[in-house]
């Protein structure tokens, strides 16, 4: 029983294997014919049943009458139909005819398992132009009237009044009551003033039903976007256009034949659907932004860490600042980091990771700073600060990391080049080394000893000072001695006598009674002073006799001495008996005194 049942199964299997060993076929296929001038068409060569090896060495016929616009595009196809395996490989070329006419495309050849196969020649008819566009143009107004409010596109925003940088969700929904075989997005909305992020752009639309104005529509969300205004003011989301292919039943034709031969699913018509423009009012960010604010809006967290805490000089350290959260993640700018001054910093490496799941755009953006310490020591990177505006709290939030401590060890010794020339002077002195040390005389002294004042100097300074004082004292003493000296007095005697006689002469000229007396006084005094000084006789011991004796001892002539005695006596008399005095006598006395002194000066020696 069982054996009987098995037989047909085996037979089918064997049969199917036999079928699979069919001969290969090679055919040329045109996608349409005739073709309008300037229109593109596809020429395909279909290789059937080539087996696992496939075809090799495809030789194209002459295609000189056509422009090759694309290809070869290779596609393979395998089918199991009722147990029969059929495979086919298609090589297709997109061609555009150059001129009008009938053209024959010659056979193409291909090698399968060493045997060459040729396709059949095909003939293409190129006509002036097709009548298609015209008929579509005629239909258009009717179609739009027909479709009317049965097909429209709506842009829905979740809010129309936001703060700059806050997220807005826009949903483009297609409402339809007509049967629509396909659609393709046409013109994208222009979104100037926004940073946009696609949330959803589905290939397959799931339809829901919605009732608008009492009519039931099938609704599909065809696009969902997140927008972040980058400037304030009124911003516009311009219309989004969708080209829909709509199946319409031509109702105006009453021709039963026509209706019969037409496509039972109706006619396919291209129809452009547009959404309405939407205005978004955007408020500027409130004032009072912190210094580290750089336009981040949303809610974020920040981490800052270095890849190693200890490093060596000239070895780079990577400082990674990661900001994660929801908001305008992509617009985040690198936070400023304050490095110790002897660090070298390079522009950060930025990477971002944006997640579109859910309603809100979230994600993280990381900034990797490569810093190179140049000098050893313990260094601190100041806390990294990052500020954002939280639209939920309506306030600015500043995040700040903890300071980052780095220990930098001395790396491979990088000896400073001893002379790094800089400027004119440097060039001039380049390759000159320092001069040699001083070998001779250390001339070492105790530190802190003053070179200004030495004890010797102090002693020596008093020497001339003492000398001066001594000289001064000596000179003064000498002067005093000289005043007492007889010789000195005698040298000066004539001078003093002359001075006294000159005074007497003045008195003589005045010739009043008082003056007369004074005249004789002066003459007497001068005479005595002269004799005293000249002869070295102290005033107490002075008398006429003493003077005469001294003078005669100095070999003065006798008559001169007599004359001196007479003069002195007459003067004494005149002083005590002034009545007898007269001008002539006075003149005589004066002349006598003068003459006596002059003669004495001339005669006496020393």
């Amino acid at each position, binding site marked *: 029983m069982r054996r009987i049942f098995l037989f047909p199964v085996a037979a089918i299997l064997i049969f199917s294997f036999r079928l699979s060993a069919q001969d290969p076929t090679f055919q040329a296929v045109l996608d349409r014919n005739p073709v309008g001038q300037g229109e593109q068409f596809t020429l395909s060569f279909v290789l059937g049943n080539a087996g696992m090896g496939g075809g090799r060495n495809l030789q194209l016929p002459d295609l000189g009458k056509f422009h090759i616009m694309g290809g070869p595009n290779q596609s393979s196809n395998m089918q199991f139909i009722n147990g029969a395996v059929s495979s086919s490989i298609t090589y297709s070329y997109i061609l555009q005819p150059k001129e009008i006419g009938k053209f024959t495309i010659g056979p193409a050849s291909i090698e399968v398992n060493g045997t060459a196969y040729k396709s059949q020649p095909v003939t293409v008819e190129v006509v002036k132009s097709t009548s298609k566009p015209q008929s579509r143009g005629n239909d258009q107004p009717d179609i739009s009237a027909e479709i009317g409010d049965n097909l429209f596109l709506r842009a829905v925003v979740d809010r129309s009044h936001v703060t700059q940088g806050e997220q807005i969700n826009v949903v483009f929904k297609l409402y339809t009551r007509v049967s629509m075989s396909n659609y393709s997005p046409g013109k994208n909305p222009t979104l100037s003033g926004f940073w946009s992020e696609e949330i959803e752009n589905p290939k397959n639309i799931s339809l829901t039903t919605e009732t608008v104005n009492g009519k039931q529509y099938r609704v599909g969300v065809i696009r969902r976007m997140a927008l972040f205004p980058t400037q304030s003011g009124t911003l516009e989301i311009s219309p989004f256009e969708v080209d829909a292919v709509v199946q319409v039943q031509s109702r105006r034709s009453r021709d039963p034949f026509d209706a019969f031969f037409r496509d039972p699913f109706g006619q396919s018509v291209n129809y452009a659907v547009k959404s309405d423009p939407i205005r978004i009012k955007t408020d500027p960010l409130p004032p009072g932004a912190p210094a580290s604010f750089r336009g981040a809006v949303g809610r974020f967290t920040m981490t800052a860490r270095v890849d190693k805490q200890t490093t060596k000089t000239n070895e780079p350290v990577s400082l990674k600042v990661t900001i994660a959260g929801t908001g305008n993640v992509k617009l985040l700018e690198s936070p400023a980091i304050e490095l110790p*001054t002897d660090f070298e910093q390079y522009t950060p490496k930025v990477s971002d990771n944006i997640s579109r799941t859910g309603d809100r755009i979230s994600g993280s953006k990381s900034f990797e700073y490569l810093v190179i310490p140049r000098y050893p020591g313990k260094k601190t990177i100041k806390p990294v600060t990052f500020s954002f505006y939280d639209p939920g709290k309506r306030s600015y939030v500043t995040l700040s990391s903890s300071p980052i401590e780095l220990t930098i060890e001395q790396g491979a010794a990088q000896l400073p*080049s*001893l002379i790094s020339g800089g400027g004119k002077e440097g060039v001039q002195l380049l390759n000159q080394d*320092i001069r040699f040390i001083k070998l001779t005389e250390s001339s070492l002294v105790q530190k802190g000893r003053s*070179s200004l004042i030495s004890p010797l100097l102090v002693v020596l300074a008093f020497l001339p000072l003492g000398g001066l004082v001594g000289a001064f004292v000596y000179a003064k003493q000498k002067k005093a001695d000289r005043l007492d000296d007889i010789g000195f007095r005698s040298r000066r005697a004539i001078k003093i006598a002359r001075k006294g006689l000159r005074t007497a002469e003045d008195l003589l000229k005045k010739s009043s009674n008082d003056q007369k007396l004074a005249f004789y006084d002066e003459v007497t005094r001068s005479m005595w002073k002269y004799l005293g000084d000249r002869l070295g006789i102290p005033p107490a011991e002075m008398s006429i006799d003493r003077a005469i004796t001294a003078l005669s001892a100095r070999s003065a002539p006798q008559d001169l001495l007599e004359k001196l005695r007479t003069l002195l006596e007459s003067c004494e008399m005149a002083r005590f008996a002034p009545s007898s005095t007269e001008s002539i006598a006075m003149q005589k006395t004066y002349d006598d005194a003068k003459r006596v002194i002059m003669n004495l000066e001339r005669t006496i020696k020393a």
Partner: protein
Amino acid sequence: MRILVVLTALVLSCFSLYAQAPDQLFLQGNEAYQKGLYAEAREAFERILSQGYESGPLYYNLGNTYYKSGLIALAVLNYERALRLLPGDDDVLHNLAIANLAITDKIETTPRLFLWDYWDALKDAMSTSAYTWLAYGFFASALICACVILLSSSFAIRKLMFVGALISGLLVLPSLGIALARNADQHRTDLAIITADIATIKNSPDDGSSDAFVLHAGVKVQITDRINQWLKVRLADGKVGWLNASSAEVI
């Protein structure tokens, strides 16, 4: 007995090693320098300093050893010190110029009146003690002339001596003034050399203060004020800021 002699000799040699005469150390340092043993030479020179002796040649030689060891800042410091004791010395000036080429910072000096250069040249023409002795010489000669005036009876000699005393007396004060100025220059404590590899100059004497600028080793600064461990410094180009005292050494 013999052992005792050896022991005494050993002890004596130890003493002589530890308490070497500074002059001997100086020669020792020079020898090491000539052999290229800069570290040893440096040690010898530093020991002289630690014994409390100094001299221009010593600082100059020490500066050379620092330069050869690549410690430019200390070389500059010691050349500056040498220059104080040997003002205008050609070798010191040359080596200081070379060492200054090797420092990182190039400070533009503001030009000053040429009279100051004349004044410096005059000051550097002789050592302080030479100027002091010069002042003393003028002083003494003025006094001697005065003595002669007092003692001489010859009018011609007295006239000559008066002129001599006047000229000498007028020259005493300038030479004494230069000597004092030089002495003040030598004992200045307001000039320092940055010895740290890198010194951050702050805007105020406080670690948290913002950085004004950065100096590297070897730069000469003028100290204009001190608060605790902070020095207010002024650069030759007029920049002013606060520096931690640990990163600089007074010349």
